[in-house]
């Protein structure tokens, strides 16, 4: 089997998605942490178009964009499939993965910005959570994937794990357990899956990192 490498950044939820998928499939890989402020020549070579992580390298060929990487992993290592077999169910899953792609961004935004721009991002985030609660999650289903987690659950890891950290660091509240009961259940279920627990970055480390970044942002705004 050709070697698998992952170029990533521990703090990125997109990177985490790929780690979750690799671990769920039991795929051995070499992890290379990228310094995003000083990108390696390897990263620039493997992702010349976007110059971003994560990048999966398999047998010397690179695959970029986390959603594309997830599908590549699922198709190349078909055991423990991460997408439904039925084309319609698969289309629905892909819809929610795209939704996760499009809405994860405001979460990251929230620590970078201040003032009423941040309020705007918090409002968008809240609306996004309402949409998931109302349309994405089915009462009684443990995960987006049913009884087992699938690609959709992985795609929403930023909601499960990053949102709480960002909220603590910025003081803003978008998620309230009583307002989003299905989402709350899902988060608890998702984070209790052993492979997921292993793949998510440590909370304390994340808090320290984002608090530091937040301080830098606030300092640069006041100077």
């Amino acid at each position, binding site marked *: 089997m050709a070697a698998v490498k992952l170029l990533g950044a521990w703090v990125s939820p997109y990177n985490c998605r790929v780690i979750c998928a690799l671990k769920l499939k039991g795929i051995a890989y070499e992890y290379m942490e990228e310094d995003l402020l000083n990108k390696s020549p390897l990263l620039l070579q493997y992702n010349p*178009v976007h110059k971003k992580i994560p990048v999966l390298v*398999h047998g010397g*060929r690179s*695959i*970029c*964009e986390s*959603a*594309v*990487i997830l*599908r*590549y992993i699922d*198709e*190349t290592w078909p055991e423990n499939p991460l997408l439904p077999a039925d*084309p*319609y169910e*698969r*289309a*629905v899953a*892909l*819809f929610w993965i*795209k*939704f996760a792609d499009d809405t994860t961004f405001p979460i990251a935004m929230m620590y970078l910005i201040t*003032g*009423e721009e941040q*309020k*705007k991002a918090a*409002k968008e985030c809240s609306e996004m959570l309402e*949409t998931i609660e109302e*349309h994405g999650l089915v009462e009684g289903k443990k995960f987006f994937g049913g009884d087992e987690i699938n690609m959709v659950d992985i795609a929403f890891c930023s909601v499960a794990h990053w949102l709480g950290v960002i909220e603590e660091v910025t003081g803003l509240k978008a998620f309230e357990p009583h307002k989003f009961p299905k989402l709350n259940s899902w988060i608890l279920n998702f984070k209790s899956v052993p492979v997921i627990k292993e793949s998510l970055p440590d909370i304390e480390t994340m808090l320290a990192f984002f608090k530091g970044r937040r301080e830098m942002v606030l300092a640069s705004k006041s100077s």
Partner: protein
Amino acid sequence: MEGEVVLLDFWPSMFGMRTRIALAEKQIKYEYREEDLRNKSALLLQMNPVHKKIPVLIHNGKPICESLIQVQYIDEVWNDRAPLLPPNPYQRATARFWADFVDKKIYDLGAKVWRTKGEEQEAAKKELIECLKLLEGQLGDNPYFGGKDFGFVDVALVPFYCWFYTYEKFGSFSIEAECPKLIAWAKRCMQKESVAKSLADQEKIYDFVLHLKKALGIEDEVAKETVRAAETAGFFRVVNFMDSAILYIKVKWGILSSSMVRSSCKVIALLEGHAHQRAQEVSKFRL
């Protein structure tokens, strides 16, 4: 096998065109329903409650949303003819990457070219050409992005070809001069019946955009009047006004409280609506 296939669409939409091309490639009979985006049908709102957007593909009563997802669905269900995605995972990943690139870049840049002026427009033109050149590079010497055969990336990109004329007219530039190979590729695609029948006429698109710009311009004027009235009454101080008739309201006195955020969002919403209704609504939002 076919079942009932319905497509909710809007004739100038390049996203709708992708699905039309895929359906035509597979020779699937379907019912085309034109949506009035200013007066969306109950069916559209029911079938795409999350985004309320076209295109929506409805197969045996079940909706599939997002054009690239529709194309992949069509390819999977009608897998006995005209394959759009290549067989091996790496080639599929490459195809998905470039289709995603088209999604991320071309629509927004193109919209900026026809919507904006001056520096913003120049920057958008420059970046659009850079992206098209990257795509040209990816095409290489192949007849299609799919290699020998018309494929997924071709479907994702070719609908923009009927919009190039609009970009060029508003931006005063020639895409063919910068990307001749890409235009040659587009013309090659247009020789396929599925593409020729699915793309809208480029002059009709240009007329459509001309009318749209005029309407937005008029709406801008009414919105500006309403905002001026609100300012005079001391409700908000407006610091920024964007071309797309969406108003960004900032209060000079500091961070907005949550009630003010709600108010300003309502004002933003009402400025996109009717003039006399707006006047009534604005009067409700005293600070």
